[in-house]
């Protein structure tokens, strides 16, 4: 990965999806100075129903790619798009790929309406509350531990200029006292669906010198700083809640994806310095600690205030907001920026991070993606 840009997340504007996408794509191309005539693939991650999105965007930014298409996999569309681009490059079909995430706040992706096992309770907050209640009952995690996740992420979001909640500050008591949506899930433990855009550039490792020479010849003060994608893991165990609930607390998709990624990268959880964990609800971050191997099964609650790994330094999904198809890409951009030493976000680490991990889920954890990145 040689460049990444995330633009401000907003509650909602009257912009169309193309112009939302262009905000980050154009900034990325200008900031990196990457030669557009060498972009082989344009992949758009979005739950928007707009037709032919990637080709329209490619045309506007002056790119004529070999491969151009959209990816929609609900909340882990972004990491799916990254994996697709990685695969094209690794196979030799492409040498470079521009990946753009874009979403409007009224996206169709915010509710998975065709899972009949959820009945009338098809909004994500229902399965979020079920997961929280089960974890508390089965493992004894406390309200304070779980709600502290939201507090931590709101605090970190305050120093993220792109976060939708950057002006909000909450303390533990406020989260605990916030409106109960479905017992025991509270309002301030939930993310907000919003509008946003984030883009990244991937290139083939062996072509780095070639592309770098093309940039310095075009534009000064632009640079490519490489971050390697060392490990990829993806697993989709099912689509319905009925089939998900039996394994989400055992060998679920996210846990399996993490194992695949660690194996490919030849590292273990103790090697990870920074992590972006999918915290659409605070309980998901606790499950993420466990699935990524940072804490043993059931002990995620005790890992909340640790200092070994920097978690969700941009403020997580709770702090930043959740533009569905953008989230996975924005998570990767955050890891990229932390690994290359860019300023901006909180990090509890007292060392320069070397290895980062992205954990991105979809539809009650029925699908999980894990990426491992290394500077």
């Amino acid at each position, binding site marked *: 990965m040689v460049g990444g840009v995330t633009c401000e997340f907003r509650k909602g504007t009257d912009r169309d999806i193309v112009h939302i996408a262009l905000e980050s794509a154009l900034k990325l191309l200008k900031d990196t100075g990457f030669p557009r005539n060498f972009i082989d693939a344009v992949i758009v991650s979005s739950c928007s129903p707009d037709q032919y999105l990637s080709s329209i965007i490619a045309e506007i930014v002056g790119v004529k790619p070999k491969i151009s298409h959209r990816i929609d996999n609900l909340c882990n569309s972004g990491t799916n798009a990254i994996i697709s681009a990685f695969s094209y490059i690794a196979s030799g079909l492409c040498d470079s790929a521009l990946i753009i995430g874009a979403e409007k706040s009224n996206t169709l992706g915010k509710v998975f309406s065709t899972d009949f096992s959820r009945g*009338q309770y098809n909004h994500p907050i229902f399965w979020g509350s*079920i997961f929280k209640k089960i974890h508390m009952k089965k493992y004894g995690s406390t309200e304070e531990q779980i709600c502290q996740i939201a507090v931590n992420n709101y605090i970190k979001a305050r120093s993220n200029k792109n976060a939708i909640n950057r002006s909000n500050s909450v303390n533990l008591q406020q989260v605990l006292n916030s409106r109960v949506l479905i017992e025991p899930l509270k309002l301030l433990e939930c993310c907000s669906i919003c509008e946003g855009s984030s883009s990244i550039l991937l290139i083939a490792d062996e072509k780095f010198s070639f592309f770098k020479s093309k940039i310095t010849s075009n534009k000064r003060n632009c640079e490519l700083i490489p971050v390697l994608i060392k490990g990829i893991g993806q697993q989709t165990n099912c689509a319905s809640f009925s089939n998900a609930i039996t394994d989400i607390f055992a060998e679920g998709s996210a846990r399996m994806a993490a194992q695949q990624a660690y194996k490919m990268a030849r590292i273990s959880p103790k090697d990870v310095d920074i992590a972006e964990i999918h915290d659409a609800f605070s309980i998901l971050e606790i499950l993420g600690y466990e699935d990524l191997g940072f804490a043993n099964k059931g002990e995620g609650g005790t890992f909340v205030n640790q200092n070994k790994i920097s978690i969700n330094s941009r403020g997580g999904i709770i702090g930043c907001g959740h533009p569905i198809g953008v989230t996975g890409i924005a998570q990767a951009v955050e890891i990229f920026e932390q690994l290359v030493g860019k300023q901006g976000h909180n990090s509890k680490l007292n060392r320069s991070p070397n290895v980062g991990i992205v954990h991105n889920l979809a539809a009650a954890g029925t699908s999980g993606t894990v990426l491992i990145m290394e500077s």
Partner: protein
Amino acid sequence: MNLNQKNLYTKKNNQQKFIQYIKKGKFVLPYCKKCRKTIWPPADNCRLCLNNLSLKDYKNKKGKILEFLLDKFSNNNANTIMIVVKLDQIILIGSLDQDKTNKGKIEGKKVRIKKCGFIDQKIFYHFEIVNN
């Protein structure tokens, strides 16, 4: 082939039939005779062996409450609670009337479908507690 023919595919698939039955208040689920299992989601083929599935009436089938939650988010009847039910090998989220007989611990209690249908274009499953 006559391209002017309308409704070329008149045979409904199991998902469409499942929805049709639910709209009529009938609760059916797909069953695989080879695997001897209830299969989810409603489909024409078993996801385990790919054999054809038949639809079975599960109206009086008993399930067990795995979990319950108080829903303060929906604009539904405040006297219902949300329950997670295991019915055969399927897990469904449905509702249960809250009254004096089911206040307190209701996990593990046996239930069956009392009513099902569509409300605001969403399927609903409303259960009732049954004695053994």
